[in-house]
């Protein structure tokens, strides 16, 4: 909303310099986003919050200035026009549904002369960014800006049957609006119609067929109150932005509707001559006021202030709210009909605070009582992020909304279908992602494209799926790796290529850190490994195949990815710690180096060792792994380090040797190992 300094002066004796006024308005809630000087005047551009349609007028802003500066407003109410009662209104008005249009008035002005507006009028409109058309249209716009009430002038002689009917549009009815566009209507849209066709879209825009032209002699001046919701729906449906719709949608007042019609008529008679030939209105006539009782103690309790009752009364009165002191120091506040935002005592508290000045309210530190339970729902996720960061991974944040093709190219089957967005702005916002890792693969591909050699990333975010009549939303952790050097110290287990073992290493580290009891990695098929937590499948690891990689434009790279359900993971966390005494007696370590068939699982092998040597064995670990020239094809070379120890005394060689030999021979029998 724009307003000029000179126009405000019509309503109030301004002495305050414009820049200072701008600052005061901003601090009272009318944020002045720009102040420009133009040809001796000043233009304020103010951002008006949606609760204050009354500020969408020069008068409304002047009322505010009056309260801020403590200056009286010059009486803005136009005088009632004297009509020659003999003359009859040569039109019939009807409103189909009062809910759609609580008030409608038409004023007929005859024998007027349409022509250019005088310079002062043109200038005022121009400064507010409104183009001059002709004196009649300009006057309706002028009154719109001054009083906030949109008006419309119809060429009376072009109204079919000299009839006005406020009704819903019929299905597929059409109208050409004054901007030259043909618009298709339906029963959700309210129109002003004559005998047989719509002549205006109510509250939004007039029709071309009945607009005021230089040859117009007689007009019908409309001033009405429409249902804001209908105007809003129509505006959205037709994509029709207008000054008029903007105000109707936020709500106009009956008092403004009545005043504006008079004000405009007076201007028309002055500037376009003509004479009033009648006035007719339908609907509510009585302006209703609303009473709110306000306890000054409540004001001060809410704000943490000690503002006197006199000051409160003064502030409210200056805002145009008639305020009286009732018994027991309670204020009775009469709310005028243009302040529909004021309904509860708390609304008046804000009015007092605004004008008193937020800046004058002191700062206090509350005694925070945290409630029965102190919690941080981020807890496990935060720890996981820190751990992964410590392992050299970089956290990324990617969009939860994705394009369908991303999911397709990751070869994910979604049985229940994906959760689709009704109103995406682009294809990138089609669905809520059912899996997280595809976004990471895309992010990885992007970084490889930026000549990054090692891309090791993770994200914790929610994934979405259809479940019955609702949407299931669950947090997951996803990791994607392409390159190892940046985060894993070379262990000799695997050479430079990234492999699932690197991913497994990260997850094992994490699971151990979270002290998860019982996790396992089980091969499902060729390149997918299931992650088992507490006997339940909780995620997977993937070695991405060539087809997937090339669909992401990843060349000459291996990529592995994992996704773990965070809810399940958190369910298995067991952070209780218990001390075990440090061993008092020394251990004896024995290594076994052997070759074994490639297809024997190391996990089974270790389990067999543990089973066999249980009473003495404390741990059995893979100390070395090799394949190469010395090892025959189809075999792998392993060194297992076995640690034997007892808690209650020193083990002797004589005890360990037969046990270790028994282990070796059982491995020979069960797995056909060949000692080296």
């Amino acid at each position, binding site marked *: 909303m724009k307003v000029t300094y000179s126009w405000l002066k019509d309503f109030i004796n301004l002495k305050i310099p414009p820049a200072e006024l701008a600052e005061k308005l901003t601090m009272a*809630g009318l944020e002045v986003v720009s102040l420009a000087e133009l040809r001796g005047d000043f233009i304020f551009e103010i951002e008006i919050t*949606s609760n204050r349609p009354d500020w969408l007028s020069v008068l409304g802003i002047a009322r505010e200035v009056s309260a801020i500066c403590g200056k009286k407003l010059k009486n803005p109410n136009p005088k009632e026009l004297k009509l020659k009662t003999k003359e009859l209104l040569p039109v019939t008005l009807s409103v189909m549904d009062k809910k759609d249009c609580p008030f409608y008035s038409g004023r007929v002005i005859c024998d007027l002369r349409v022509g250019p507006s005088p310079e002062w009028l043109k200038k005022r409109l121009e400064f507010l960014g409104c183009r001059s058309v002709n004196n009649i249209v300009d006057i309706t716009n002028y009154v719109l800006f001054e009083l906030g009430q949109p008006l419309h002038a119809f060429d009376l002689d072009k109204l079919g049957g000299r009839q006005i009917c406020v009704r819903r549009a019929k299905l597929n009815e059409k109208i050409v609006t004054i901007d030259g566009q043909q618009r298709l209507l339906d029963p959700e849209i309210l129109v002003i119609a004559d005998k047989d066709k719509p002549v205006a879209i109510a509250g939004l825009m007039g029709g071309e067929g009945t607009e005021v032209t230089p040859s117009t002699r007689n007009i019908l001046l409309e001033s009405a109150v429409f249902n804001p*919701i209908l105007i809003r729906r129509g505006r959205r449906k037709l994509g029709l932005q207008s000054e008029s719709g903007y105000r109707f949608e936020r709500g106009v007042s009956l008092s403004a509707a009545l005043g504006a019609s008079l004000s405009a008529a007076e201007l028309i008679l002055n500037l376009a001559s003509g004479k009033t030939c009648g006035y007719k209105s339908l609907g509510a006539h009585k302006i209703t006021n609303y009473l709110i009782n306000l306890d000054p103690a409540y004001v001060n309790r809410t704000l943490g202030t000690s503002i006197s009752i006199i000051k409160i009364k003064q502030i409210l009165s200056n805002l145009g709210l008639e305020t009286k002191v009732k018994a027991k120091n309670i204020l009775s506040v009469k709310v005028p009909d243009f302040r529909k935002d004021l309904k509860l005592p708390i609304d008046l508290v804000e009015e007092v605070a605004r004008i008193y000045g937020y800046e004058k309210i002191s700062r206090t530190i509350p005694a925070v009582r945290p409630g029965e339970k102190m919690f941080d729902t981020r807890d496990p996720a935060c720890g996981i992020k820190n751990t992964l960061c410590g392992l050299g991974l970089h956290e990324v944040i990617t969009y939860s909304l994705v394009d369908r093709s991303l999911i397709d190219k990751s070869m994910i089957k979604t049985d229940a279908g994906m959760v689709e967005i*009704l109103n995406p702005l682009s294809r990138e916002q089609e669905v809520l992602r059912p899996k997280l890792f595809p976004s990471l693969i895309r992010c990885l591909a992007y970084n490889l494209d930026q000549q990054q050699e090692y891309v090791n990333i993770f994200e914790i975010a929610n994934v979405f799926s259809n479940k019955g009549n609702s949407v299931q939303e669950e947090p997951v952790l996803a990791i994607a790796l392409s390159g190892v050097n940046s985060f894993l110290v070379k262990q000799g287990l695997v050479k430079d290529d990234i492999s699932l073992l690197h991913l497994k290493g990260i997850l094992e580290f994490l699971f151990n850190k979270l002290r998860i009891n019982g996790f396992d990695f089980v091969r499902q098929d060729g390149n997918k490994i299931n992650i088992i937590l507490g006997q339940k499948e909780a995620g997977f690891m993937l070695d991405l195949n060539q087809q997937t990689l090339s669909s992401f434009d990843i060349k000459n790279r291996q990529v592995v990815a994992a996704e773990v359900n965070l809810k399940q993971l958190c369910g298995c966390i067991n952070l209780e710690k218990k001390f075990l005494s440090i061993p008092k007696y020394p251990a004896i370590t024995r290594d076994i180096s052997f070759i074994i068939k490639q297809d024997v699982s190391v996990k089974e092998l270790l389990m067999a060792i543990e089973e066999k040597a249980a009473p003495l064995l404390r741990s059995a670990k893979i100390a070395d792994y090799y394949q190469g020239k010395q090892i025959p094809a189809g075999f792998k070379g392993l060194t297992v380090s076995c640690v034997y120890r007892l808690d209650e005394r020193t083990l002797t060689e004589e005890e360990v040797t037969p046990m270790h030999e028994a282990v070796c021979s059982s491995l020979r029998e069960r797995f056909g190992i060949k000692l080296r």
Partner: protein
Amino acid sequence: MDINLIQEKIENDLAGVVSLRALEEVRVKYLGRKGLVAELTGTIATLPVEQRGAFGKEVNALKNKLLNFVEEKENLLKTKDNVLKQNNLDIGMPGIAQKPGSLHPITQVINEICTIFNRMGFSVLQGPEVETEYNNFTGLNIPLEHPSRDAFDTFYLKKYSKLLLRSHTSPVQVRAMKAHKPPLAIIVPGRVYRPDAVDASHLFMFHQIEGFLVDTNIKFSDLKGTLGLFAKNVFGQDTKMRFRPHFFPFTEPSAEIDISCIICKGRGCSVCGRKGWLEILGAGMIHPNVFKHVGYDPKKYTGFAFGMGIERIAMLKYGINDIRLFFENDLRFLKQF
């Protein structure tokens, strides 16, 4: 066995030793449990009684000499080794350590803000991103089909007429208040969604932090004090703050909060649009209608709530000029934080 011959042989052996490891081998060979000296000592008992004393003395002398030799050699080798090592080490070489990973800057800002409020006694709570229309709007006193909803353009879901992607973190107010009785001191970080056209300062997904405090005697001045502490801790002790009246349907009175521009310290620059102030927060006293919706007695309880955009704060703190950088996840960007 001629002790002197043995001693000579040992001296020759020791002269050839150039490393500590080789020295240890020689030591074990002669002085070890099964070494030569032990062997000689073992033979004493087999000698005639009159020879035992003299031979024993000789063996003892040999042992002491050997111990001295080994010790001397060891000291020599250790010193030499050190000098060698010190001369060869170029301290200009890169240190050897694990390469670090990084937390996303948004996570870092969220952590920082949550920590500040944690210290004041606030708990952290998160809520779902798919929300009901009720929690996102109606429960927060935002009427359907009202212009106040224009600020919250929203993504809706197909097939579910009453579900949407939350357009702010405020629905968690409704959830928390329905689940817990006052007093409540809660802070809510999370993702929010709005169908905004993408440019350098707008995205369709971003992060917010919501905070609220509900108790029997919470005042507007408490809101000012709490946010003042917050701003000084995040942006520096000399940060100024101003509260401007504003409108939010779920708070009354409502305020928008500016901090003095952290770039120009309030003098006016391009970042703050020459105003000297940067808007960073929306806040206010929780509207009695919100309390009614969750079943709190608005006569008994009062509270304040505030909300802020994390990306905006991160952009100001780190001098980032394009919001899209946060979600591009370029490692060259991420590694800077």
